[in-house]
């Protein structure tokens, strides 16, 4: 018997098939069976090898040999043949790489086409944590909640896993070869690509652009359309109107003394917002070095003026804020421009207090060259043009405002492009093949385009996405997309800096491919995205040391010096006079404003539990959106809720009607919202979404038209008489006159730098005769304790080094962006609990951002204060626990011993800060609603997400912030091995690491040289509920505002200061 006569096996067979394409590709097994090899292959399970063996006539030895070999080979079927390539250098390489010590890789996360550089922690090949990449200009090591939330999307148990043929929303599992066969055949049939359209989201990726262009070169009649709902059309059109070409504007908030934001939420929504937050904070922060008693004027802060159509976190940071309907902003901008000497045409009188306006103009003039005027992305192009003109007039260009070429590979008016596409699709057969790469246009397209029907009636449609969504259901084919962390790619940041995206893990589901791979596979065999990206860059940088450059770039996560150079563009003379085409119904009746949701954005995070449960920064709403309006408007419409303090208010359900489009949505009053305007956030009310997103919120896209994608007037509101329960994590707005968040003006601070230190915010003084419960500290200071003096010895036994851990939170620069909340959730394996449980006050976040209002409900001051476990030295939780499950460490940590906890909840009752969270159910298993919550960490896929350094808590156990004790221990181990003390800055808690403004600083408070100690020594340092003598290790820096003294409305009286704002 000749074993090697015909060396055919499954692998060679597969290779042969892979090489074929187009119509030659096999259609059925029968067809294939015609080949002699295959006939043979079909006959024998193990081709060639067993044919002549008759088990009955076999001798014992041969039988055993075969049996053994079969067993051994059977195990092989579980293996996958992947090309072994060492292509992933670690950012932090260690010679002694050990299992259980995570590796960290640099890569990028793409949002709206723009890259944010990140460092991803990989535990045994599982990405478990996304941090910012300090080398990346858009991140500087910080993070946003949405960037971190992409990690949860990777492990979404409801991700699509298969190529499917879709028929009227019914999915039939198919294969890539089936799809490619169909697609290639159809493409070949068009010859030059007539009727072929590629629809993508915003693209900045050089490689992807190159691939698209290559494809378009082959099919010249084909077209590439970009569309996403949160496009920058207004910015782009504004730039085109001003400069005649698409120009990218960069702002340098670190140099700005006066900022005027015309409805621009540059701290949360604009490209580069993480970076902008950092820059903004540098001009707001007060450090001891800045305070000079001789020359108090030396201390400066920037001053932010803001007019806004819906309260945003940027508005909360404003020193002067004016609520203004979106349609009025243009008139206001024109008035500002006119006042600054810009020929802006007819300046409509803006309804602005005179002193306010004059102060603003005065400040802007005074800080020529160090001011910024910035417009919101939903403001019409004219406002952007006016901004360019004002910045030019103020001499800011080249200083605080810089221009570069557009970052987008092909900057286009996306809405116009989509409109044109829809028109073409309407015409019979103009569009035959539509390939949608990412996005969810069927859901997000303006309602008047009737895009779903257009897609349904197109002959061949395919949608590449991670979820089976609305667009997938309308298409003929659904293709599973690979996650950013699963595939190679590249992208540009807001300033043009390019970075290579490297995967952290092979696609969890074998069928998933990236858009790059798919584009190549339309004409060639399915490639590996690595080859595509590698080859592209090799062409771009043909140098002998390309490999070195490649490795370095991957290591750093950015291509060095790839930021676009600053350029000078000529502002066209009459640009500022250009008026925007009239907004439909502008100025009539109620105005409707459509904005991206602060957490789930345009709907892309709709099935992301972290984002659904993350309280929106201002409303603290979770799991829903609402029609936001001012109290006065609600009262006028008879929709105001009864004044009361209940957690759950059944909100009135109204029907909004604009231009014949209707939407039923509940009303929520938002202090500071302009009157006669209603804001509805986009992204909710999806119909084809996973279990997390199902049944949440209301689809505002149903009110969005091509004529008015952002705002429009003439809306009708009808009370349906029904109510809808909106769930928020807090209901009480006021501080009740308690000194909980210390804030004052810069002026007051200069007069009295320690204004924040009051009886309420400091540890009580010792009085005569109080000796029994007195603690005498090492430095001789005496403190009175509510509890008996406990001699916590802050010394470690036997170790050479001792630490006293503490945290400082700077309320002055906390912008309330929630990045820390998601960071903590990710780092500490915190489960989501669902709307019903949030309703019951059982959300599990270990850090919460308290939001307080002060002042009139029409335009209050808004403050944020992040609250975590204070790690009190006299912790009220500790003595009341009957089983010693919460104890004090020698380093001052208030520790929670999960194993020991029986769950009496006494500690939580006795915690004055209410920072303890209780597992009322087995939340980590998705209870109480395992169907909806998808098993949370219990789901096999989601288990991959868990941080192995942190226990996953079970039912009936109390938990709370641990100061990221796992990170302290990691640093301790490293330091111990090196025989040194832990350095300042070596332990960074997850919240501190992600904070865009670096408002959170952690370290050793006993060592007076550490940053945290220096911050705590600042005069603005204060304790939350210090009067209770709990002696918290977490302290706060007071919030300072920098109002213009010329504006009277802000010179508030004490009466006003204490006026509670009731819901």
């Amino acid at each position, binding site marked *: 018997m000749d074993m090697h006569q015909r060396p055919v096996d499954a692998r060679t067979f597969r290779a042969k098939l892979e090489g074929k394409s187009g119509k030659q590709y096999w259609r059925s097994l029968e067809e294939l069976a015609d080949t002699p090899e295959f006939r043979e292959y079909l006959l024998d399970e193990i081709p060639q090898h067993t044919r002549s063996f008759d088990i009955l006539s076999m001798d014992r030895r041969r039988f055993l040999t075969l049996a053994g070999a079969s067993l051994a080979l059977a195990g092989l079927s579980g293996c996958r043949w992947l090309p072994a390539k060492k292509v992933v250098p670690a950012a932090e390489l260690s010679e002694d790489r050990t299992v259980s010590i995570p590796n960290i890789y640099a890569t990028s996360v793409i949002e709206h086409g723009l890259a944010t550089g990140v460092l991803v922690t990989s535990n045994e090949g599982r990405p478990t944590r996304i941090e910012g990449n300090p080398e990346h200009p858009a991140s500087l090591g910080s993070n946003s909640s949405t960037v971190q939330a992409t990690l949860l999307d990777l492990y979404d148990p409801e991700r699509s896993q298969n190529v499917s043929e879709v028929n009227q929303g019914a999915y039939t599992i198919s294969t890539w070869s089936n799809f490619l066969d169909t697609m290639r055949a159809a493409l070949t049939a068009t010859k030059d690509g007539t009727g072929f359209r590629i629809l993508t989201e915003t693209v900045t990726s050089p490689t992807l652009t190159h691939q698209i262009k290559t494809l378009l070169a082959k099919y010249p009649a084909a077209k590439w359309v970009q569309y996403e709902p949160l496009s920058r059309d207004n910015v782009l059109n504004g730039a085109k109107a001003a400069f005649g070409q698409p120009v990218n504007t960069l702002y340098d908030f670190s140099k700005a003394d006066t900022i005027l934001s015309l409805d621009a939420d540059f701290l949360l929504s604009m490209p580069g917002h993480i970076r902008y937050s950092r820059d903004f904070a540098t001009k707001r922060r007060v450090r001891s070095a800045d305070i000079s008693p001789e020359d108090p004027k030396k201390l400066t802060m920037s001053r932010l003026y803001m007019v806004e159509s819906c309260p945003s976190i940027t508005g909360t940071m404003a020193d002067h804020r004016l609520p203004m309907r979106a349609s009025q902003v243009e008139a206001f901008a024109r008035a500002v421009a006119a006042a600054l000497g810009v020929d802006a045409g007819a300046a409509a009188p803006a309804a602005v207090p005179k002193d306010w306006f004059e102060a603003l103009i005065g400040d802007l003039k005074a800080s020529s060259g160090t001011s910024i005027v910035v417009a919101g992305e939903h403001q019409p192009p004219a406002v952007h043009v006016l901004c360019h003109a004002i910045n030019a007039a103020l001499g800011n260009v080249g200083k605080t405002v810089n221009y570069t070429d557009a970052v987008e590979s092909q900057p286009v008016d996306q809405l116009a492009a989509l409109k044109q596409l829809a028109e073409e699709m309407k015409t019979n057969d103009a569009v035959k093949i539509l390939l949608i790469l990412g996005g969810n246009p069927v859901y997000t397209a303006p309602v008047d385009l009737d895009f779903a029907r257009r897609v349904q009636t197109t002959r061949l449609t395919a949608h590449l996405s991670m979820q089976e969504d609305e667009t997938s259901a309308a298409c003929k084919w659904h293709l599973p997309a690979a996650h950013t962390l699963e595939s190679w790619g590249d992208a540009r940041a807001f300033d043009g800096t390019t970075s290579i995206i490297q995967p952290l893990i092979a696609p969890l589901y074998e069928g998933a491919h990236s858009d790059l791979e798919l584009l190549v596979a339309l004409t060639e065999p399915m490639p590996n995205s690595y080859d595509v990206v590698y080859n592209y860059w090799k062409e771009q940088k043909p140098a002998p040391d390309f490999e070195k450059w490649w490795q370095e770039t991957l290591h750093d996560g950015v291509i060095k010096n790839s930021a676009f150079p600053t350029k000078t563009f000529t502002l066209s003379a009459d640009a500022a006079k250009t008026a925007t085409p009239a907004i439909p119904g502008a100025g009539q009746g109620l105005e409707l404003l459509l904005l991206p949701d602060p957490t789930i954005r345009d709907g892309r995070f709709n099935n992301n539990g972290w984002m659904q449960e993350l309280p929106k920064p201002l409303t603290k709403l979770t799991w829903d959106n609402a029609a936001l309006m001012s109290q006065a408007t609600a009262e006028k419409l008879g929709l105001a809720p009864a004044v009361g303090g209940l957690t759950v208010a059944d909100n009135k359900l109204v029907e909004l009607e604009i231009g014949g489009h209707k939407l039923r949505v509940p009303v929520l009053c938002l202090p500071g919202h302009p009157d006669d305007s209603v804001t509805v956030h986009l992204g909710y009310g999806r119909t084809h979404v996973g279990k997390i997103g199902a049944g949440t919120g209301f689809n505002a896209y149903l009110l969005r038209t091509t004529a008015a994608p952002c705002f429009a007037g003439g809306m009708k509101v009808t009370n349906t008489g029904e109510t809808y329960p909106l769930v928020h994590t807090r209901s009480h707005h006021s501080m009740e006159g308690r000194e909980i968040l210390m804030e004052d003006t810069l002026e007051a601070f200069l007069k009295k730098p320690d204004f924040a230190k009051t009886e309420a915010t400091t540890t009580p003084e010792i009085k005569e005769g109080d000796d029994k419960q007195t603690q005498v500290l090492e430095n001789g200071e005496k403190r009175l304790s509510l509890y008996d003096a406990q001699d916590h010895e802050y010394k470690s036994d036997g170790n050479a080094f001792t630490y006293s851990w503490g945290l400082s939170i700077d309320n002055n620069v906390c912008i309330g962006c929630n990045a820390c909340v998601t960071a903590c959730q990710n780092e500490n394996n915190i489960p989501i609990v669902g709307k019903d449980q949030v309703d019951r006050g059982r959300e599990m976040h270990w850090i919460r951002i308290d939001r*307080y209002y002060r002042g009139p409900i029409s335009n209050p001051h808004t403050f944020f204060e992040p609250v975590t476990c204070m790690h009190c030295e006299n912790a009220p939780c500790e003595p009341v626990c009957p089983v010693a499950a919460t104890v004090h460490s020698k380093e001052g940590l208030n520790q929670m011993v999960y194993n020991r906890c029986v769950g*009496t909840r006494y500690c939580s009752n006795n915690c004055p800060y209410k920072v303890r969270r209780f597992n009322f159910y087995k939340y980590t298993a998705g209870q109480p609603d395992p169907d909806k919550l998808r098993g949370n960490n219990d789901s096999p896929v989601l288990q991959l997400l868990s941080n192995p350094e942190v226990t996953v808590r079970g039912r009936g156990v109390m938990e709370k912030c641990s100061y990221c004790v796992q990170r302290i221990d990691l640093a301790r181990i490293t330091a111990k091995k090196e025989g040194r003390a832990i350095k300042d800055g070596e332990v960074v808690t997850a919240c501190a690491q992600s904070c865009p403004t670096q408002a959170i600083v952690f370290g050793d408070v006993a060592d007076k040289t550490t940053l945290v100690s220096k911050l705590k020594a600042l005069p603005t340092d204060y304790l939350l509920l210090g009067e209770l003598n709990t002696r918290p290790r977490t302290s706060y820096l007071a919030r300072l505002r920098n109002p213009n003294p010329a504006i009277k409305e802000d010179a508030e009286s004490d009466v006003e200061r204490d006026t509670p704002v009731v819901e």
Partner: protein
Amino acid sequence: MSSATRRWWSNTVDIEETTIPGAHEDLVTDSMLPGKGHDYKNLGDRIAELILRQRVHPYAWLVTFGIGFMLLNVMLMSITYLLYKGIGVFGVNVPAGWGLDIINFVWWIGIGHAGTLISAILLLLKQKWRNSINRFAEAMTLFAVACAGLYPLLHTGRPWNAYWLLPLGPNILGLWPQFRSPLLWDVFAVSTYATVSALFWYIGLIPDLAMLRDKTTSKPLRVLFAMGALGWRGASRHWARYETAYMVLAGISAPLVLSVHTIVSFDFAVGIVPGWHTTIFPPYFVAGAVYAGFAMVLTVGIPVRAWYKLKDMITMTHIDWMAKIMLTTGLVVFYGYILEVFYGWYSGDKYEWAMILNRFFGPYKWTYYALLTCNGIIPQLLWSPKVRRSIPAIFLISQTVSIGMWLERFVIIPVSLHRDYLPSSWGYYTPSFWDWSMFIGTMGFFTVLMFGFMRVLPIINMFEMKELLFGNKHKHGQEAADRDPTHSHVVSMPDTAAHSDDHSH
């Protein structure tokens, strides 16, 4: 009964001259056992009949027991569901970590207090009028403590680990519990209280069990009662030891009346929460407990005395006096409410004052007004002797007080918790279906135990009633004693142990 049938457990016929301390206390009046025709035999028979002739139980018993049994099953279902799903089935949350679970715990414990007070303190104070009510008051204590005891166990997140609260020490658990926690003191206080109450109740039962043993004609019952009677023969030595043991236990129990609720109040007083952290709690809780306890004795006693025609044993005088105790303790409690408000203002502490304002004007204000009405205002009707002697009025007022005392715990626990220091954490507590089903279920548990008890053990202390009768009969003997001092000390003790009425002679 002939001497041939006499068994070892039967009484001897010896009647010894016995010294009965306090038998001639002048508080024992005719009004405590009014009516004519009482003799030692029919008094014992009438009480024993409830056990030995089961048919005498009225239809009302069956209805009450039936309802109780259904509710008991509701409780069992609630417990099963709770253990299966988790503590989340209750309405508790953050900030209100405790809700109906702890309210009901404190409420039931409070109800138990009347039993101990009646049996121990009134005994020590030689208040003979307690004799007709002490047995079922003591039983009520035990059953209320049983209901209460369920809650601390079941309200924990992991009830299967609740034994970690026991001081099993390093040898078994590797760790002591945390002795600074009031919850641990609770474990000791409540378990001691339950143990001592059970002992006290049982010791008091022994002579009655012996009497039942002698009265019953059923052999198995006789064996059972005999086992319970521990060989009681009514010998003077037995009586002497009994009296000593009873007095010692009364001595041990008396401070428990004060300590248990004092310690329960520490659960709150030791906390830092405004509305909890107050030194007035121990006396105010004890008074409240006695208040609630007497209300419950009346709530149970009034129907029982009607159904079983015991109006001559549980008399209007009893009811009148219990009403007076309710009025007194109610006034103490009301004083506590007034002082809480005063302290809130006088302390100058903004959190304390905010807590008081929240009680008056907050979202739960109705509970506070209802509390003041139920516990403060309505019981003032008891100043009127007419009201004190009106059965419907007393019955309604008792229930009002029970509701009021429940509301008091509601006001203290969730109403204090839901709005404490940081307004950002303010929340709201709404009891869930399972909170209520568990609560109503424990009422069923209590009813089943109480009404079950009525059929197997004497609800009124037989021998102590005879003591009362003895006192009545020797009313004139009292006068004689004045003339002859020896008479009051050495008296002939006729069949106090019920030995001779039907068997021995």
